[in-house]
């Protein structure tokens, strides 16, 4: 919202020593956020009132004129393209050094002496849009210069002075006052300013309306919840014409374009009291049924499918949730949002009906939002306005109308249907409570003074203050003692509160093991294994349902996705990670990424949804995902599986990878996938993506992924503590190499060999010969070659060669008997 300094000065007598910037800062620190302070006319230096003394044709250009312009001291030759320039016209003369916008567009440019088509020009005769006055003087023709002949200022007067552009305009962040319905007009803001500077606020006291009898207004509120109050009055003898300068200037200052006196009055009240009003042309309110002079106004819910055209000439389909203002025949306004085209004030309007009403905040917002028409009116009603303001606004509007239209006369009584109540307290407040909450030692009289300056009524009874909330703060803003603490503290000044650290116990905080695990894993992956961490959105595209054969019903769907292409919540990290792989392979030969993030599992229950309900939210595990693809790496599986081993080796746990050929969906390579089993529990899976799936995604390299639930893993792992005393006896290593059926796994063999004899202390696979790479064909079909280091050691003595030979023989036999190997 824009706020005018001069407007505030109408209500508060501010000291001359106060600068507008100081006031802006004070407001920011105590009331609302001021985002900008703009001085009117600050870019109008060197632009003065000039009088055109002579106009001649430019010798070399048909559309240009040569003018002699008097600037109060001397005449200047200026080349001008304005179509309306004539002798004796008062114009805005931009002298050398003035800043203008060429044709009203782009940045400000400083004028210099110029030669235009061979003729020297000392300045420029400006159009309104070229000097930022387009709102005040709308252009009527394209090449029209600003005609100032009607103003009184002498030649040489600066434009800012001539037009009395001496206001300062504050840009207030609307978000900072959503909870303050009273601040949406200058009077409410002035009340704050008066309190902040300890000044008196001018009272707002328009005279009572003298009712007439010629015109009957009947108001019938069908839904009192949506319309707690409706006031209306009719005025005849209206002459619609432009508003006087003072009114236009006020509106322009706050960014509104003047339209005509009646509309301007409603807009003025909007920005003065924060009360939206509407003016109807009475002639268009009357229906055929209504023979006598008068109108029946209804505030009713719209019919389902009812069509309504607003002032901006847009047609809307209404629902039963929308409130309309209507005659018996037709709707004439969308309550609190915008008037109807069918009853707008036109130049020939002679009788008007003013509406000053109060509408429900939530309903107004919902209608405005659904129909996409946020107006100054709806944005105020949605803050919960004080219904008491309707009357003040109506009185002031009538007062102004009678002032602006000398022949106008109130011709109806004041209709006032109301049904509202406010909780004004009183709120009980103790001085001790205030001081304890703020952390200061205020005196009671200080507290009382602050509250009273803001319009609260304070009664002091036995050390308890009974504080009555003024109506304009009672709609939703202030209801409990804590609210009053804020009022006192901010006027007292937050800067005056001393900083105090509380005394706390020194007990160290409980450790979050999941966070610790997450951080450790991230370190291992990034530092040891060279993985890069990615963050992806929690949303995935429906294309994955087709690409990966996922079950649509297993995914949670957003009701209102930001983009239609990502409506589902991720159940796994890999879909978005595969997109990362695809994109990055265009730039890099190798992509090695990991992500840790929550996923959403529709089919398993998680934590409780609310205190008073048994409903459970979907399970949301913290997942670790890895993805790897590299040009020329045919079995990326091992790169990620070794990273997983690298992680798990850091903890006290038993783990294994167990081949698994079937998984939900069709995206996994059936021969290169395994479950990750820790202490017997499945915590995740590692596998390559099915070549067909890779093809569908557009990834040319074999790609492996991992997904492990950290919530499941944390249940299994403990801090590593498996140190074994160093043996004093030497270990002996023997190797064994053999051909074995391709299907036999490393785990099967290792598990077996481990138990051959207690002297077997270590089994380490050090070579596997890939039969597919066996060029010489030494390895028979269906076989593979494996080689192990076997470590033998006794804890009691130094083993002799013979003893080792015996056990090694036993071990070899086991291999032959159990796995049908061919020792090499």
């Amino acid at each position, binding site marked *: 919202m824009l706020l005018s300094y001069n407007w505030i000065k109408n209500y508060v007598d501010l000291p001359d020593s106060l600068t507008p910037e100081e006031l802006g800062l004070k407001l920011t620190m105590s009331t609302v956020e001021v985002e900008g302070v703009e001085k009117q006319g600050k870019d109008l230096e060197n632009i003065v009132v000039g009088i055109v003394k002579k106009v001649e044709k430019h010798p070399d250009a048909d559309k240009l004129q040569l003018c002699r312009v008097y600037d109060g001291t001397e005449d200047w030759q200026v080349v001008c393209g304005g179509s309306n320039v004539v002798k004796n016209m008062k114009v805005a003369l931009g002298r050398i050094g003035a800043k203008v916008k060429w044709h009203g567009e782009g940045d400000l440019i400083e004028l210099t002496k110029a030669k235009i088509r061979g003729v020297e020009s000392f300045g420029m005769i400006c159009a309104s849009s070229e000097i930022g006055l387009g709102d005040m003087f709308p252009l009527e023709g394209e090449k029209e210069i600003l005609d100032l002949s009607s103003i009184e200022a002498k030649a040489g007067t600066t434009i800012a002075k001539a037009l009395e552009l001496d206001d300062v305009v504050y840009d207030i962040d609307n978000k900072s006052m959503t909870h303050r319905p009273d601040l949406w007009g200058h009077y409410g803001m002035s009340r704050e300013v008066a309190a902040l500077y300890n000044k008196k606020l001018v009272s707002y006291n328009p005279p009572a309306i003298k009712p007439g009898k010629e015109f009957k207004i009947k108001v019938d509120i069908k839904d009192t919840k949506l319309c707690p109050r409706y006031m209306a009055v009719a005025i005849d003898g209206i002459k619609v014409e432009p508003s006087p300068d003072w009114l236009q200037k006020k509106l322009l200052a706050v960014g509104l374009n003047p339209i005509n006196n009646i509309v301007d009055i409603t807009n003025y009240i909007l920005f003065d009291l924060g009360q939206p009003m509407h003016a109807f042309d009475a002639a268009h309110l009357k229906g055929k049924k209504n023979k006598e002079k008068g109108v029946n106004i209804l505030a009713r819910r719209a019919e389902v499918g009812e069509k309504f055209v607003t002032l901006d000439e847009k047609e809307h389909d209404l629902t039963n949730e929308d409130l309309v203002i209507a005659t018996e025949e037709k709707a004439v306004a969308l309550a609190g949002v915008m008037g109807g085209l069918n009853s707008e004030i036109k130049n020939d309007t002679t009788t008007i009906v003013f509406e000053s009403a109060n509408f429900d905040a939530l309903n107004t917002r919902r209608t405005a939002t659904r129909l996409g028409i946020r107006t100054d009116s709806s944005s105020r009603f949605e803050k919960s306005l004080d219904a008491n303001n309707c009357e003040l606004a109506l009185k002031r509007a009538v007062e102004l109308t009678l002032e602006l239209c000398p022949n106008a006369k109130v011709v109806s009584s004041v209709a006032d249907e109301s049904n509202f109540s406010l909780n004004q307290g009183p709120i009980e407040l103790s001085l001790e409570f205030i001081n304890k909450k703020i952390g200061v030692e205020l005196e009671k009289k200080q507290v009382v003074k602050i509250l009273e300056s803001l319009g609260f009524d304070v009664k002091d009874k036995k050390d308890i203050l009974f504080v009555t909330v003024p109506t304009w703060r009672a709609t939703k803003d202030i209801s409990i003692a*804590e609210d009053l603490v804020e009022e006192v503290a901010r006027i007292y000044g937050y800067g005056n*509160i001393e900083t105090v*650290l509380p005394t706390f116990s020194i007990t160290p905080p409980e450790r979050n093991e999941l966070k610790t695990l997450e951080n450790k894993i991230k370190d291992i992956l990034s530092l040891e294994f060279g993985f890069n*961490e990615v963050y992806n959105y929690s949303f995935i595209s429906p294309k994955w349902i087709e690409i990966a054969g996922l079950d649509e019903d297993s995914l949670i769907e*957003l009701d209102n996705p*930001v983009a239609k292409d990502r409506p589902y919540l991720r159940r796994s990290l890999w879909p978005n990670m595969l997109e990362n792989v695809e994109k990055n392979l265009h730039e890099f030969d190798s992509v090695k990424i990991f992500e840790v993030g929550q996923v959403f599992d529709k089919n398993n229950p998680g934590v409780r949804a*609310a*205190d008073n*309900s048994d*409903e459970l939210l979907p399970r949301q595990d913290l997942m670790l995902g890895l993805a790897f693809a590299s040009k020329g790496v045919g079995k990326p599986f091992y790169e990620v599986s070794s990273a997983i081993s690298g992680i798990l080796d850091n903890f006290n746990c038993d783990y294994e990878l167990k081949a698994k050929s079937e998984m939900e969906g069709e995206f996994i390579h059936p021969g290169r996938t395994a479950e990750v089993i820790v202490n017997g529990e499945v915590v995740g899976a590692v596998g390559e993506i099915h070549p067909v799936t890779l093809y569908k995604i557009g990834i040319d390299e074999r790609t492996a992924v991992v997904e492990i639930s950290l919530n499941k893993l944390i249940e299994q792992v403990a801090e590593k503590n498996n140190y074994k005393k160093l043996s004093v006896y030497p270990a002996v290593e023997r190797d064994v190499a053999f051909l074995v059926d391709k299907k036999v796994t490393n785990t099967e063999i290792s598990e077996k060999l481990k138990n051959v004899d207690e002297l077997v202390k270590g089994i380490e696979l050090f070579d596997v010969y890939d039969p597919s790479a066996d060029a010489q064909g030494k390895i028979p079909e269906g076989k593979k070659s494996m080689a192990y280091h076997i470590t033998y050691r006794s804890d009691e003595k130094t083993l002799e060669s013979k003893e080792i030979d015996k056990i090694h023989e036993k071990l070899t036999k086991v291999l032959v008997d159990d796995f049908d190997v061919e020792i090499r």
Partner: protein
Amino acid sequence: MQETLDKIKKEFIKGLDEVKEVLQLEELEQKFFSRKSGEMTEAMKSLKKLSGDAKAEFGKLANEVKKELEDLYGKKKNELEKNKMGDLADSESIDVTQPNLPKKENGSLHPETLVLREMEEVSRNMGFIVEDGPELDSDYFSFEALNIPDSHPARDSQDTFYIKGHPNWCMRPHVSNMQVRMIQKYGTPLRVAYPGRTFRNEATDASHDHTFYQFEALVIDKDINVGNLIGIIKELLSGLYKKDVEVRLRPGYFPFVEPGFEMDMKCLICEGQGCGACGHSGWVETLGCGLVHPKVLEAAGLDPKEWSGLAFGMGLTRLAMQKYRIEDIRHLQSGDLRFLKQF
């Protein structure tokens, strides 16, 4: 005997002088000290034939000579070895600027992870539990328990993502959904921080994204006041920026605190003088904070007459962008390694 020893000594020294390389030295060693037929070995052996005083006398002498010769031999050997390595600088020189090949690719952590860790560390050091919770939560914990009524704009689908088929589930629009959950989980008194991922239904551009990270912290204790609020936040910010910071409070409105504030920090770049980074105001809008609203305490089952609290929250994503001068928020969730590998 004496003669024999003198002779051996003389010959050995002479031989040593003639030695030019290790091989010759080894030959010399064989000649004199070989176990089977070395001249010195033989001389030592012949001692056995002697007896009495002579044996003792010559034994001592022989040992002295042997020791002397061995020392000379050692010296010569060192000398030769040293000479041999003399041109290492040349013969074995390498290009020290060359990396180990094939080059090992470094991994990286996401910039938001880096900032998050700093926040976590500072919070933990100040005695805060650090925790995260559900990103998909009920409107009860996201709004209702936080004193955000049905009529509040934040509850519109224009601002919050809702879940199809579950009108009371949403993607949390702030991490404040953790306030009541944490009080219920840990009880009082409590110091807890909960950074996490949040969602707002809004169009994306260089400075807005529908997914971003927030940091929030909550203190529940007896007699918490506004002065404490400023004190704690100042400490935390000082820890984060590793220098003393100056802050100021101004009014701010959040339904779950009362009173509520915006906190600005004096611009660290210009130290309050005004510069481009702080919009020439000297202050940077840093966080929202306030004393916990009694209704939130009640929702968590606490008596607001007995317990009080403070809460403050800030945008982690914005913090990361400020710290690393990241110009476009969309880089963060792009998965683009050209971006990620820089951290």
